[in-house]
């Protein structure tokens, strides 16, 4: 029978995967003021670059992950320089449609390069280590954790902490926060908003690229739609946390991740509905806290 604690652990692992994507999406949302629908493709691309590094070139997995981090980050810069600079004053809806176009474009490029068939990272299989086996009353507790799980959670937290330090300790990070708070004020204060946007794209892309690697490690299989398939959940996490708040997004990611897994315990509801669950939670929270959990603060 499903062990309740195990579900929570699974949720934490899944939350960690969407965590990186959520932070990046939230930064773009807050600073650029638009929803990046191509974010799922960033994840996919990160996964496929990891694949290229790990399988095609035979590099160690974390070096491949670093490649994904750098490459997708660079792609973010490229997109910003080529495409987005023309759209600094566009309305959010224009930007949304633009990113939908970008998503279709990127996915087609991924297809052309890697084909439609699934690819596999071929990471070694591992049976989870059993921890804390036992029970109290009716509640079975007992969890199995694999080293991949631990690596995913660890890596996600390290990058999240890194992002936190970047946002609080560096000039650029502080400029980003200022711009998220108030664009015109930031401009008046002499912040080079153009550069800030580019850096935001880079950071957002790099985090998503790494998120893609984690996703590939967890799923084991890569295919062109993999990122798009979870981007809705990422959006749910971002909105739940409060748009534009990376810390809110972190909380949101874990809440959504855990809630999805734990929803299996509700009797009479098919496991397939757990994806719907993320949205129901999100809407329920928004009804009572319209600004999201972080309430528009950082």
């Amino acid at each position, binding site marked *: 029978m499903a062990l309740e604690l195990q579900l929570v652990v699974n949720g934490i692992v899944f939350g960690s995967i969407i965590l990186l994507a959520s932070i990046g999406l939230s930064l773009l949302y807050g600073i650029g003021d638009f929803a990046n629908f191509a974010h799922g493709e960033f994840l996919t691309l990160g996964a496929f670059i990891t694949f290229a590094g790990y399988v095609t070139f035979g590099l160690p997995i974390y070096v491949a992950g670093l490649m994904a981090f750098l490459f997708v980050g660079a792609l973010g810069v490229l997109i910003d320089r080529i495409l987005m600079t023309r759209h600094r004053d566009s309305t959010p809806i224009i930007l949304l449609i633009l990113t939908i176009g970008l998503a279709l474009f990127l996915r087609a490029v991924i297809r052309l390069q890697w084909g439609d068939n699934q690819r596999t990272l071929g990471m070694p299989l591992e049976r989870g280590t059993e921890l804390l086996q036992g029970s109290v009353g009716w509640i079975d507790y007992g969890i199995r954790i694999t080293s991949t799980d631990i690596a995913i959670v660890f890596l996600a937290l390290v990058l999240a902490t890194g992002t936190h330090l970047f946002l609080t300790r560096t000039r650029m990070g502080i400029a980003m926060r200022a711009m998220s708070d108030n664009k015109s004020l930031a401009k008046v204060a002499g912040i080079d908003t153009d550069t800030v946007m580019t850096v935001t794209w880079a950071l957002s892309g790099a985090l998503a690229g790494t998120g893609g690697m984690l996703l590939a490690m967890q799923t084991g299989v890569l295919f062109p739609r993999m990122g798009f398939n979870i981007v809705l959940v990422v*959006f749910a996490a971002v909105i739940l946390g409060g748009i534009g708040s990376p810390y809110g997004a972190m909380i949101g990611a874990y809440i959504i991740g855990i809630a999805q897994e734990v929803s299996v315990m509700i009797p009479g509801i098919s496991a397939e509905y757990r994806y719907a669950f993320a949205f129901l939670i999100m809407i329920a929270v928004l009804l009572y806290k319209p600004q999201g959990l972080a309430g528009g603060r950082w």
Partner: protein
Amino acid sequence: MALSGPAAFLVSMLTLGGIYAILAIGLNIQWGQTGLFNISVAAFWGIGAYTAALVSKVGGETAFSWGLPFLWVDVVGFPIPIPVAVILAAIVSGVVAVLIGIPTLRLRTDYLAIASLGLAETIRLIFLNEGWLTGGGTGSTVSNPLVDLQYTNLTLLVITLVVLGIVYWLAETGVQSPWGRALEAIRDDEEVAQALGKNTFSLKMQAFVIGSMIMGVAGALTALRLNYITPFEFIPEFTFYVWIAVIVGGSGSNRGAIIGAGFLMVLLEGPRFLSDFLPGLSGSVAADLRFLLIGLVLMLVVTYRPQGFLGDKQLMTEDNT
């Protein structure tokens, strides 16, 4: 039994284009007119299609056995399949829209977008997993009364165009009326509309429900066109297609929505002829290039003509939030 040859292909494309045009008009009422950022088009499209499939099954038996001409308008008060299916599709979509609207229409624009997207996905999961109702992943047959007619495809085209005409008239009349004016006020600034005594929630709900009902009608027509529907027809990508039609045609313009739907058809179906000009292109590469092209065109259009063909420049280029 049917029209054939290139003409039939054209008829089929026009029918699909007409369906997209109806969807685009529905979305235009919501987005172009009222500023509701709805990304659940595919859900209402699907609800309409499934409703039509379900009711056509119910009514099929009796109405068919009478051997009546199927487009015959009722005399003795017995309803005939097609209008019933279409109207019921609209009603069911409307009811669902009310239920979805209550929690989501209070939300800020972008929250509404994601919330509606999530609900659309939930509805698709219901199509997929509630086999007792929808046939689940296997899909659902549609007892299409048109199939036995002499010119099935032509009849469907005529029906689609008639529906499109009605929908266009309703939308245009609505837009020109004080009702349309109030919706535009909400689009421009909801708080001002409130200050002027407009019940904005109620008006937004009306726009949302009417738009969704129109999408439901398009769903019923889609069911008649495909004769068999599966949940895989109603994935989020199709919502984006309708958005493309509205944005490219020009937000706020119903004529633009129709032109946008035409453009969408060219964009979606045109590249099918790509392989005629580029022999040696494999099917999968052609398919990928097609999406590459769609993405590219989309980016170019919003970059160089953000207001679309017939759009209100005001709406698309100035930040109204």
